[in-house]
């Protein structure tokens, strides 16, 4: 690859930054359509049972109300085939909740009615008037009960090679006979994504068979597929627009009942329907990080070599849909250990379905594994960094393959130096500043450097601007900015000459924004599309200009108003002339992962987080006073947006470690922490100035750009780094997050 890069690696400001800070960026709830109506969902007040009756008379009579839709009068949705009718399939594989499709209540606050009115206020008022009667059944929301009935995920039963199936290397449970032995249980509570932007949708039937939705989603294509299927429509008939997404952290990776409800409502009232969830409904209707129980068994030789690890995890899911994640993956590949086995189970409860939340299962799993690493280092009287180095692995112990690239050692070194790791004392409780104890901890994170297939559209406009289009969304990481930089460097144009358009299902197909895979996947598509554009323009120019005809596409240069050639400035083809013959149209290119390389190498991004905490031993207050996050994420396309990603992940990790938790009253199967006064996320005062360090070495195998992905590793490993630092400060090991003052006093 020729040395690129004026833009790649720069700190280019977000291309949409100005729009966002001036309020000019239009989010899903902010579109206005003629005849708009407003929908408000009514949730069930029981966790399990049957709806006996719904009295909607008062609501229907309320001013401005256009419809009250319940399962009694909902228009039939063609894709809502009956569930639970096939006795050979477990109940938990029923799929997404089919809203207003039957009289069953499967979780508390399940949508049981939607009220549509001509204003939001009227819809809200009327929604309060809807009264339901239930035939209640005994529900189970208590994880303790779920654990007693934990089961192997259906996916693992069907496919023993699946990532959630049991895994054994060497001997299972070999830790039990190890020289130095640790066995500990770790718990993560249910955490909620709570992005700033509430989940919102506008559903608009443009014709009886044509649906347009403005939706908060991380994947315009996936949303299109889901709702085309739900309504038995060809996919082209459904258009999904998600230009701006105000954070999502995973909760817009799935299609949810409120989206179905808005589409049903729009069908019924024959007007566009806008539906925005309330903050309380964000807890119950759009997924969450599942409550997860884990157990780590670990043994090591007295000289600090891990001899065996057993990692068991059980995650909560709903009674109607199995949600699985890669909670135990890091344990399989992070450290050399001859004996490793993992067991992943599900606990089905009468709750709504969870969904990936940033760093997803890997972040949950890393809390257990990286806490256990710290506990074992303590047992061995070893520095936890030294312990990790003694168990460092240069090839993937899970499958014996070489790493595509791995610079974790470099991360360890940079981070340790920056935090001042040498100040750390082996003996907990040794450092103090006035009333506050000081401790240091570290945690490692890893996530697959995934790359999928993607297309990209590109065309040149007569004014010399290059327009690219992709269905991909930008949920905040700066996708639009990164793609602009990649295009600018590939074409040799300044970023102002590039217009990258995204967030529309009618653009070139691209995968859902998630799994840290977007730069890895869409980046190459943009790059290849730009090269194809060069070639196309060269050929077009070559028709009347011999110099272009014989030139190589690499020599094509975009000047301000004309195309020219490297080393031959006299060869010129003006854009206006070029585009006279044909409007140019879009060049569409599909970029696919390098299949062979994928087979040959194991591909992962890595991070290590170092935390310095202060703990008040009297009150149990914990403050993170320093946080250093180092990442081996391949090429860093944009230092600024990548740095933002890392900082955001680190702050998310502080939330996970110290405050985020929902509390369920199991008597009612109903959460008591539903708003942002009860569900705490970090505020500015909780976040120190996070220092971010990148190795910034290209990975030679994932793609031509050398990227590996950042979004997940930014948070994976942060919570254990803080928990380990709290132990180092106090000698208290908290194995159930979050580490709130009540657990330390």
């Amino acid at each position: 690859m020729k040395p690129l890069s004026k833009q790649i690696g720069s700190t280019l400001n977000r291309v949409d930054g100005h729009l966002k800070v001036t309020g000019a960026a239009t989010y899903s709830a902010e579109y206005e359509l003629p005849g708009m109506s407003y929908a408000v969902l009514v949730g069930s007040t029981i966790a399990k049972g049957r709806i006996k009756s719904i009295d909607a008379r008062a609501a229907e009579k309320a001013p401005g109300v256009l419809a009250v839709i319940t399962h009694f009068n909902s228009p039939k949705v063609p894709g809502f085939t009956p569930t639970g009718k096939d006795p050979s399939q477990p109940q938990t594989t029923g799929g997404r909740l089919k809203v207003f499709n039957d009289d069953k209540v499967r979780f508390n606050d399940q949508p049981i009615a939607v009220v549509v009115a001509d204003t939001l206020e009227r819809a809200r008022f009327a929604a309060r008037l809807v009264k339901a009667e239930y035939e209640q059944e005994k529900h189970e929301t208590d994880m303790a009960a779920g654990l007693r009935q934990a089961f192997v995920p259906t996916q693992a039963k069907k496919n023993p090679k699946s990532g959630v199936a049991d895994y054994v290397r060497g001997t299972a449970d070999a830790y039990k006979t190890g020289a130095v032995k640790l066995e500990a249980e770790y718990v993560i509570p249910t955490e909620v994504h709570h992005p700033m932007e509430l989940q919102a949708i506008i559903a608009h039937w443009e014709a009886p068979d044509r649906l347009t939705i403005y939706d908060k989603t991380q994947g315009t294509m996936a949303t299109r597929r889901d709702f085309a299927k739900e309504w038995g429509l060809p996919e082209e008939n459904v258009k999904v627009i998600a230009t701006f997404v105000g954070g999502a952290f995973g909760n817009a990776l799935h299609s949810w009942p409120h989206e179905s409800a808005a589409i049903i409502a729009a069908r019924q009232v024959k007007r566009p329907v806008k539906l925005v969830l309330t903050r309380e409904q964000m807890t119950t209707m759009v997924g969450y990080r599942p409550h997860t129980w884990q157990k780590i068994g670990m043994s090591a030789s007295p000289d600090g070599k891990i001899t065996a690890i057993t990692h068991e995890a059980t995650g909560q899911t709903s009674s109607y849909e199995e949600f699985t994640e890669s909670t135990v993956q890091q344990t399989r590949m992070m450290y050399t250990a001859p004996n490793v086995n993992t067991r992943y189970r599900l606990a089905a409860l009468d709750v709504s379905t969870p969904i990936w939340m940033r760093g997803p299962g890997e972040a949950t799993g890393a809390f257990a594994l990286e806490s256990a690493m710290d506990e074992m280092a303590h047992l061995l009287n070893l520095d936890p960094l030294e312990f990790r180095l003694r168990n460092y692995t240069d090839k993937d112990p899970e499958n014996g393959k070489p790493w595509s690239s791995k610079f974790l050692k470099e991360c360890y070194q940079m981070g340790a130096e920056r935090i001042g790791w040498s100040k750390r004392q082996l003996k907990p409780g040794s450092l103090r500043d006035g009333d506050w104890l000081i401790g240091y901890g570290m945690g490692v994170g890893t996530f697959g450097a995934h790359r999928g297939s993607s297309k990209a559209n590109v065309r040149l406009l007569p004014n010399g601007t290059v327009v690219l289009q992709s269905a991909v969304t930008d949920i905040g990481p700066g996708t639009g900015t990164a793609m602009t930089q990649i295009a600018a460097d590939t074409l040799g144009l300044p970023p102002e000459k590039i217009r990258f358009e995204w967030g529309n299902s009618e653009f070139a197909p691209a995968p859902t924004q998630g799994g840290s895979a977007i730069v890895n996947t869409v980046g190459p598509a943009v790059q290849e599309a730009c090269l194809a554009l060069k070639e196309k323009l060269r050929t077009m120019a070559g028709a009347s200009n011999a110099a272009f005809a014989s030139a190589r596409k690499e020599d094509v240069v975009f000047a301000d108003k004309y195309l020219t050639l490297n080393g031959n400035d006299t060869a010129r083809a003006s854009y206006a002339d070029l585009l006279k013959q044909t409007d140019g149209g879009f060049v569409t290119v599909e970029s696919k992962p390098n299949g062979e390389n994928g087979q040959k190498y194991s591909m992962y991004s890595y991070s290590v987080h170092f935390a310095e905490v202060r703990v008040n031993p009297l009150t149990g207050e914990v403050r993170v006073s320093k946080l250093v996050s180092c990442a081996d994420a391949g090429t860093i396309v944009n230092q600024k947006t990548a740095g933002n990603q890392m900082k955001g992940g680190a702050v998310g990790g502080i939330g996970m470690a110290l405050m985020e938790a929902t509390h369920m009253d199991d008597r009612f199967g109903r959460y008591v922490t539903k708003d942002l006064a009860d569900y705490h996320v970090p505020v500015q005062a909780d976040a120190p100035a996070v220092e971010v360090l990148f190795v910034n070495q290209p990975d030679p195998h994932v793609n031509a750009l050398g990227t590996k992905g950042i979004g997940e590793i930014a948070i994976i490993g942060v919570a254990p780094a803080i928990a380990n630092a709290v132990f180092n400060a106090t000698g208290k090991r908290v194995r159930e997050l979050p580490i709130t003052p009540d657990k330390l006093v």
Partner: protein
Amino acid sequence: MNQFQYVRPSKQQAAIEAVAKDANATFIAGGTNLVDLMKRGVMAPQKLVDINRLPLTRIDHDPGKLRIGALALNSAVADDKQVREHQPLLVQAINAGASAQLRNMATTGGNMLQRTRCPYFYDTAMPCNKREPGTGCGALEGINRMHAIFGFSDKCIAVHPSDMSVALVALDATVLVSGPRGDRRIAFADLHRLPGDTPEKDTTLEPGELITAVEVPDNPFTKHVSYHKVRERASYAFALVSAAAALDLDGSTIKAARLAFGGVAHKPWRLTAAEQFLVGKPATEETFKQAATVAMQGAKAFKHNEYKLRLAPNTLVQALKNATAA
């Protein structure tokens, strides 16, 4: 939200009459608590009497006492030179509450009268005697980690959430009230009540009674003060437990002390016995621990708030240490 009437009288008497005459009318000041409760369906007044036109925003220091108008904003009080000079404990307590934005809207009167943050009170699908007398107390056997360890009843175990009030009760403040039957003064410690059998009543105010001001007598507690609030994040969260401590020191001997807890009872919890215990004793951690033991007499925990039995005394010790060092 329900439909409601809205009036904004400019005469105090008109405002009082509007509420006194109409059982479904209520005052609104900053609205930061009331409007939330209306949106959630917890309160549904049919008439709002906006008192923001009444001339109740003044903060004056007269000989011997500070007088804060009921409509003085929390931020204005905390920034006021006279308040900072004479009542630094009050400043600390106000600044520990809510966020800068909320303190810019919240008023002195409204802050005292804010309602509990008990999650069962806020969720109309849950039982709650305070919201709907007779439905039972959801918290009693539920998720009661935020709840009371003092002064509760089997009808209600909620805590009062105001930080400002914890300082005011410690500082012997007096609430000035004007009502349909004239004016009266209420010792701050008597403004809020314990739940007993009628948890729906938060205070001893009569219908239509308007708080016009709060008075804080001058005192020697201008230096050694601390409001220590323990919460689940560094800022912008309600207290798990908070402690107000004010000391008058003669060298290292305690001449007088004022102490109160927040987050432990249905009202700000003055600690008179512990105050008396401290008088004449040396200001050491050992003394503070003994005082904290005195302060905790009679405390009783529920399933999820047992930690408060340890956190509350420790927080008091921390506040006393801070105050001594101040």
